[in-house]
């Protein structure tokens, strides 16, 4: 059976359903290191650069990484060059990618989302915006904005007012009821939800018995959190009508099938890119092969099959 891997995510046409997760694949850095010509053979169906903020941020002190069982704790702290340098230096180069570009933005105050969205609204290189309201390292009154339905709605509404582009809101799992947050974002104008960002966690160095991360706590990603992510995607996509980008612990083609069946329209690979920066190449091949074996004609056919 011929498999047609094309997918769509709102107005975005994707060659297949697999994209990268923000902060885990840097096409500009990888292109310097890897012999692959990433600008012609880009393995993902869309590219999401690392989150940028209004002002440059130098990020958290080291250590910023600590591996846990089947997981990775990070406290990068949204290190980035700031949206102006992003627009000036990176956007022109990213515009040459053969896939849609989804810019990820964050701010320390809700109105910063409106300003960032406004700065990108006029840029043709940008196909969609993702609001990172869930990074556990940027806190408002000691709490991530994405934990509060009010602030979530407010950030979303401000971005919505500033742009007509496809608007994705990325949710945090660190809440009592993620559906409440999902509804708040959609009611405030989100076109799509990214589910999930990292899970709050912490590690101690087993030798010193002191916190392993410079920032003490951090965000857990990787296969360890896949069950948390699948549940969130399942619950949200059963209740709400917007497309969901599923992510959290994807390392294989089977994982992609599971996220689609749980209700995701597209699936993002994050931490697994660190196992192999070109994982997406073999993963997408294997995905096509599995779909053939299982008689699945299109990714869309599978979306929500587990409901």
């Amino acid at each position, binding site marked *: 059976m011929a498999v047609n891997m094309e997918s769509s995510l709102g107005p975005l046409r994707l060659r297949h359903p697999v994209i990268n997760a923000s*902060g*885990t*694949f*840097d096409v500009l*850095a*990888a292109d*310097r*290191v*890897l*012999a*692959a*010509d990433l600008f012609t*053979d880009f393995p993902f169906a869309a590219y999401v650069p*690392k989150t940028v903020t209004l002002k440059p941020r*130098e*990020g958290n002190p*080291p*250590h*910023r*990484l*600590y*591996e846990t*069982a*089947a*997981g*990775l704790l*990070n406290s*990068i702290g949204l*290190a980035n060059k700031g949206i102006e340098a992003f627009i000036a230096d990176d956007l022109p180069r990213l515009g040459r990618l053969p896939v849609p570009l989804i810019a990820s933005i964050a701010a320390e105050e809700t109105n910063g989302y409106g300003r960032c969205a406004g700065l990108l609204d006029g840029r043709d290189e940008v196909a969609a915006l993702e609001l990172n309201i869930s990074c556990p390292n940027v806190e408002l009154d000691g709490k991530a904005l994405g934990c509060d339905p009010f602030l979530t709605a407010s950030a979303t509404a401000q971005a919505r007012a500033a742009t007509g582009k496809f608007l994705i809101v990325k949710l945090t799992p660190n809440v009592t009821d993620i559906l409440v947050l999902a509804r708040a974002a959609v009611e405030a104008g989100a076109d799509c939800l990214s589910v999930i960002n990292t899970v709050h966690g912490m590690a101690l160095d*087993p030798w010193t018995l002191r916190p392993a991360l410079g920032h003490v706590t951090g965000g857990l990603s*990787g*296969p360890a959190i896949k069950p948390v992510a699948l549940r969130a995607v399942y619950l949200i996509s059963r209740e709400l009508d917007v497309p969901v980008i599923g992510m959290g612990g994807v*390392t294989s083609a089977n994982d992609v099938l599971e996220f689609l069946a749980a209700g995701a329209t597209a699936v993002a690979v994050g*931490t697994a*890119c*660190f*196992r*192999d*920066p*070109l*994982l997406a*190449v*073999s993963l997408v091949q294997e995905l096509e092969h599995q779909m053939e074996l299982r008689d699945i004609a299109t990714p869309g056919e599978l979306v929500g099959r587990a409901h």
Partner: protein
Amino acid sequence: METVPAQADLYQCPVVESRTVGAYHLIAFVAGEIAAVARPGQFVMIRQSGPALDPLLPRPMGIHAVEADLVKVLVEPVGKGTVVLTDARVGDRYSVLGPLGNGFDLSGEGTAVIVGGGVGMAPLALLAGTLAGRGRDVRCQLGFKTRVQAVAAELFRDVDVDICTEDGTMGRKAMVSELLVECLTDLGPAAAEAELFVCGPGAMMRAAVETAREYGADAQVSVAAHMACGVGACQGCVVRAGGEYRCACNQGPVFRAGELEWR
């Protein structure tokens, strides 16, 4: 920094040698594309293949030796990731990504004073051989806790090595920084033209750099950092250098001593 092959299966390298060297473990991979271009001070990211997801990520290992199409690393089993690496058996395939990082700057001409502590000696072996091969004057000092580690100094083939251990069970009973002072004193006025190449535990590197400064010598140090990607994608492996955070993987792991801010 050379570029890394594009196809994922090119990273799959067969193990052709795997043996204990005292407290460490030596593994040799067939990795022709890496061997062809690797420079001293560069590293590889290594991971066992297979369906298990713990350990999850590859571990950075300095390139210890290059012979024909073989790349060798020397692993000190300190935690889960490194213990699992020592399970390598001939015929296994490992994912080996590299060469990564900037490597040492070999353009200097003064006496090369190589200072290694513990498994930090691993990448210095390739460096020593390369510098000696170019005819540069090379002095090597290696310090270890005790004999079971120090026996790995036999892996330095092309140069003479001064060895010390903290407990005197092999070589001199001394800290490597004492050997370094003697070496630089011995060099006399040439010390100011000498260049240190340092890799080892933080405290030892700091002491070596301090000594270099006192004698007016330059120093390049290869730093350790927790890494996830090795290619500049995650921003996780930062060290403080030149007043900012720099990634040890693609702006290092070798830095000029002068730009590093020690914590």
